[in-house]
């Protein structure tokens, strides 16, 4: 089947020997500027997503749904630093409130794919045989066609597209990528001596997986979590922007960018501010993920 590595590609990581084994996790510095700087931006983004009301009112017009068509597409003025959108709503308040669905989807999809990856990846690696074949062949189907095409086809058939539906469809198409990672890491662990020993003394599959396999094979998946959140936020906004993701009246960056599509030549500020917030958010998650990856999985450096 397509998608499985029928070819044995010589990967760059095969020569990891005990001599070059990484320093234990607790000896590696975690609180470096490379981690702390994006981490503080991520923390700020999370607070904004949780409590947009705290920030939206800074310039005195905190309600994103108080709109006056007379102000349609107006540029920045006092009290409205980002100007107004097509409906005449304060763009700053809208952009602040738009943080929530994006961050929610980013976190929910990543959590969902990681949970599926841990369950299916460990099961496939530990039990092998039929379980492994079922999981692997299902993944092959998803690797068999362009992800975006599949998402667009499925989403365009759903009328009520709220954040949960969009998150669900993203999970449906992205779980194979994390599961593949988890499966190969768990597969490498399952054959190790201490797992064989635990099996030998009669530990239950559940106990072996939870106590021995999982803790020693979760590194690669944890390492891509930050980048994954950023990528999922991008994926959501791209789908929404295409017109098959979130839809009005949900306030989200993708919706704002989608409505700004036809007006961008005359009023670039409609496009500028949502994309600026989107970019800063995604970049913060990606940079944090990158820094953490080097801590969790130094082989990739």
């Amino acid at each position: 089947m397509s998608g499985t590595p029928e070819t044995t590609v010589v990967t760059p990581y095969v020569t990891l020997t005990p001599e070059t084994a990484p320093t234990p996790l607790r000896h590696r510095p975690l609180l470096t500027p490379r981690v702390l700087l994006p981490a503080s931006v991520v923390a700020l983004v999370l607070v904004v997503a949780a409590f947009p009301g705290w920030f939206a009112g800074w310039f005195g017009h905190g309600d994103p749904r108080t709109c006056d068509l007379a102000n349609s597409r107006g540029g920045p003025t006092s009290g409205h630093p980002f100007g107004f959108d097509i409906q005449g709503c304060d763009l700053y308040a809208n952009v602040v409130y738009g943080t929530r669905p994006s961050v929610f989807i980013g976190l929910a999809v990543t959590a969902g794919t990681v949970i599926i990856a841990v369950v299916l990846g460990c099961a496939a690696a530990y039990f092998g045989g039929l379980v492994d074949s079922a999981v692997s062949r299902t993944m092959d189907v998803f690797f068999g066609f362009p992800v975006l095409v599949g998402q667009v086809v499925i989403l365009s058939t759903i009328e009520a597209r709220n954040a949960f539906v969009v998150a669900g469809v993203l999970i449906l198409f992205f779980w194979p990528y994390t599961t593949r990672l988890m499966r190969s890491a768990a597969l490498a662990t399952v054959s190790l001596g201490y797992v064989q020993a635990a099996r030998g003394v009669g530990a239950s599959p559940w106990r072996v997986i939870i106590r021995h396999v999982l803790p020693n094979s979760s590194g690669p998946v944890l390492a891509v979590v930050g980048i994954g959140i950023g990528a999922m936020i991008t994926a959501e906004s791209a789908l929404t922007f295409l017109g098959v993701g979130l839809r009005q009246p949900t306030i989200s960056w993708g919706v704002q960018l989608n409505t700004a599509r036809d007006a961008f030549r005359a009023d670039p500020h409609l496009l500028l501010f949502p994309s600026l917030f989107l970019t800063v958010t995604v970049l913060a998650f990606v940079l944090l993920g990158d820094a953490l990856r080097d801590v969790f999985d130094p082989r990739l450096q």
Partner: protein
Amino acid sequence: MVAFVVRRIIGMVPLVIGATFVIFAAVYALPGDPVRAIAGPTTEISPATRTAITEEYDLDDPLLVQYWYYVTGVLRGDLGVDLRGRPVFELVEAAWPVTLQLGATAWAMMALLGVGLGTLAAMHRGHSPDWAVLGLTTVIVGIPYFVVAYVLQIVVGVQLGWLPASGVREGWPASYVLPAVCLAMLGVPELARLTRASIIENRYADFVDTATAKGLTPRVIMVRHIVRNSLVPVVSVLGLSLGFLLGGAILVEGIFAVPGLGYTLFTGIEQKNGPVVVGISTLMVFIFLALNLIVDVVCGLLDPRIRLVRDA
């Protein structure tokens, strides 16, 4: 080799059936009245017209029967007729050269930039060029590519007016540069990092020691031995990224109004034009699978260490 290719193609059959069925079933489930869509929004639909249209498009048959008509049609090279009476095959015929040009341009840019930056970073490992490449690739990953597309369109296309902002009226290369750059950015970071890691890994290979011992110059060792050996995983990723380019083309062609396959699919979705969506998606699945197969074969030819596994 022939046996391997045949086995792979046989292995693809269930995948093709599964993928096309999902696409077909999803579009079958599209909300709305297909008869209304065919007749147009304003026409009065008489019961006779409704019967005629239902009859012509086999709308009354169950899903599986309709799917069977569709599959046998595809096997005859017939992608069906869209809701405006145009054969989908004609739409594809008009669109594919555009997507091919765009994809090839983007792919070439991606290969040059990705391998170039990766090699640069690896040769100066731990020094400023390495950090610059790392920073650049991280920023590219972090900025959503449709934002990049819009910024380029506004700044380069509209405000500076250096290149056409949309459409393909000015032909290749002028009209294709901006969309191709955006598409290429999708793959450059991964490619650059992979190239870098691969080259760094190969620097400590035994054959490099041999080459050094023979007295070859560092430059010759780098170009002839290290880079060449490092390109195998890179070629594999380069090939697979063709599939991602297909997907990314939907968005980029949509933004820059490039009338290729992605744009046709995009407008098909917007107009709820089921046969177009099914036809183009099917075609994309076929292209994707064919590319995967070609990549595996090419990698096998490039590097004899790669065995084409027997039980494929």
